[in-house]
């Protein structure tokens, strides 16, 4: 494999890891709110959080392009206010990966919270712990395996992200080129021999990642 191809691999790992870290806090919060609280509009938020799984990725990419483009409502503010440009930069790759992998994290973390026995939480409350303390010392540690498994799945999903990324980040050599984009482009250009090593590496990485996720989620907690 060429040095250029290795750079593409490391870039993809970097943006996938970064996007997973970015969605972790908000994903955990949303998952907990869905699993443990009743509030108006909950079903709607739950559905919206699932949407990127089912909406065509290219359509999600178009939405992001419209919002974060130089003339979009968010993009123009970021550009003028902070001088941060999103579309057609590496940030757009992270954004697309984050949005596309968000549902997997929330879904997995949510069922992890739901599996935590509420009696432990109630016991902590009767002993005088406030809600933050209950969350930090009981709910979060007990749901940790599920959350980690969700993060692993989100990372694996980000590694393979294609449709939304292609639309919002383009396929710019050395700037936004990920493994998936590079494979697609090489095939389009008739350079199958350049696509094959990337194909192999991406399968290996995702296989290891998903396998780790399976092992983590299979290990049952001592209750």
């Amino acid at each position, binding site marked *: 494999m060429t040095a250029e191809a290795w750079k593409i691999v490391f870039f993809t790992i970097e943006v996938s890891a970064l996007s997973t870290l970015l969605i972790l806090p908000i994903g955990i919060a949303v998952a907990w709110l869905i699993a443990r609280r009743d509030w108006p509009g909950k079903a709607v938020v739950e559905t919206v959080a699932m949407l990127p799984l089912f909406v065509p990725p290219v359509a999600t990419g178009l939405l992001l*392009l419209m919002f974060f*483009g130089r003339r979009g409502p968010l993009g123009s503010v970021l550009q003028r206010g902070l001088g941060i440009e999103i579309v*057609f930069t590496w940030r757009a790759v992270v954004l697309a990966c984050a949005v596309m992998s968000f549902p997997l994290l929330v879904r997995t973390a949510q069922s992890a919270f739901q599996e935590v026995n509420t009696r432990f939480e109630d016991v902590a409350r009767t002993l005088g712990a406030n809600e933050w303390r209950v969350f930090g010392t009981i709910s979060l540690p007990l749901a940790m395996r599920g959350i980690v498994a969700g993060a692993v799945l989100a990372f694996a999903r980000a590694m393979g992200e294609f449709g939304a990324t292609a639309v919002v980040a383009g396929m710019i050599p050395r700037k936004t080129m990920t493994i998936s984009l590079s494979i697609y482009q090489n095939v389009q*250009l008739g350079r199958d021999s350049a696509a094959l090593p990337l194909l192999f590496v991406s399968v290996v990485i995702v296989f290891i990642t998903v396998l780790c996720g399976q092992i983590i989620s299979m290990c049952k907690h001592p209750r």
Partner: protein
Amino acid sequence: MKTRIFSLLFSVLIAASSSAAELTVHAAASLTDALKEIGAAYEKESRDKVQFNFGASSMLARQIEEGAPADLFFSADEAKMDALEKKNLLLPGTRRSLLSNLLVIVVPADASSAPKSAADLAKPEFKKIALAEPATVPVGIYAREYLQKLGLWDAVKEKIVPTENVRGTLAAVESGNVDTGIVYKTDSLISQKIKIAVEISAAEGPNISYPVAVLKASKQPERATKFAEYLAGPKARSIFAKFGFIVTR
């Protein structure tokens, strides 16, 4: 009753197969609007239907090499046609070059600053330049070779946002997500949301040529040849000219 329906159905099928053919044409994205109009005119005159598959000529050539079912190929450069000819995929004697075009540098219609020459593309105020993939897509290659000839390529190549085809470039400039882009003059003429900043003259710019050919894999070569001839005929020429193409023969 049943037999009557079947015989009716049968005769309809026979009639359909003998009279109206459906042609599939792989054509360069820049030809989209002109060919749609020509296709509609042709469908009125003949009984054949014309189905277009528009995209980057490089992608279409690749699809043809992989056995995509198509009757004609209308490329935006000679190199793609050469490659197919070398692989013996063209019907001999049907290839001919019909059109030429010009390159233009375009900016969003409301842009506050625009390049005054190709050399201005190197200026720092133009941070992102949209261009069809410059390694393979014809318009990208034409533009790259032109900028290389001027000694500008190294100064601009880091600013290139590659798109899938020329219409992708046009869309990127229209959206304002890039500062400028290079397209064919004919593409710039169909959009209200962009304006031409620099027109590169035929003498100065690359030699752009659009060849068409019937493909060997066509199952209806006579019909396909007929449409290829129509494309070179007076009606089609006037439509191409209307859309700003330079008709070369």
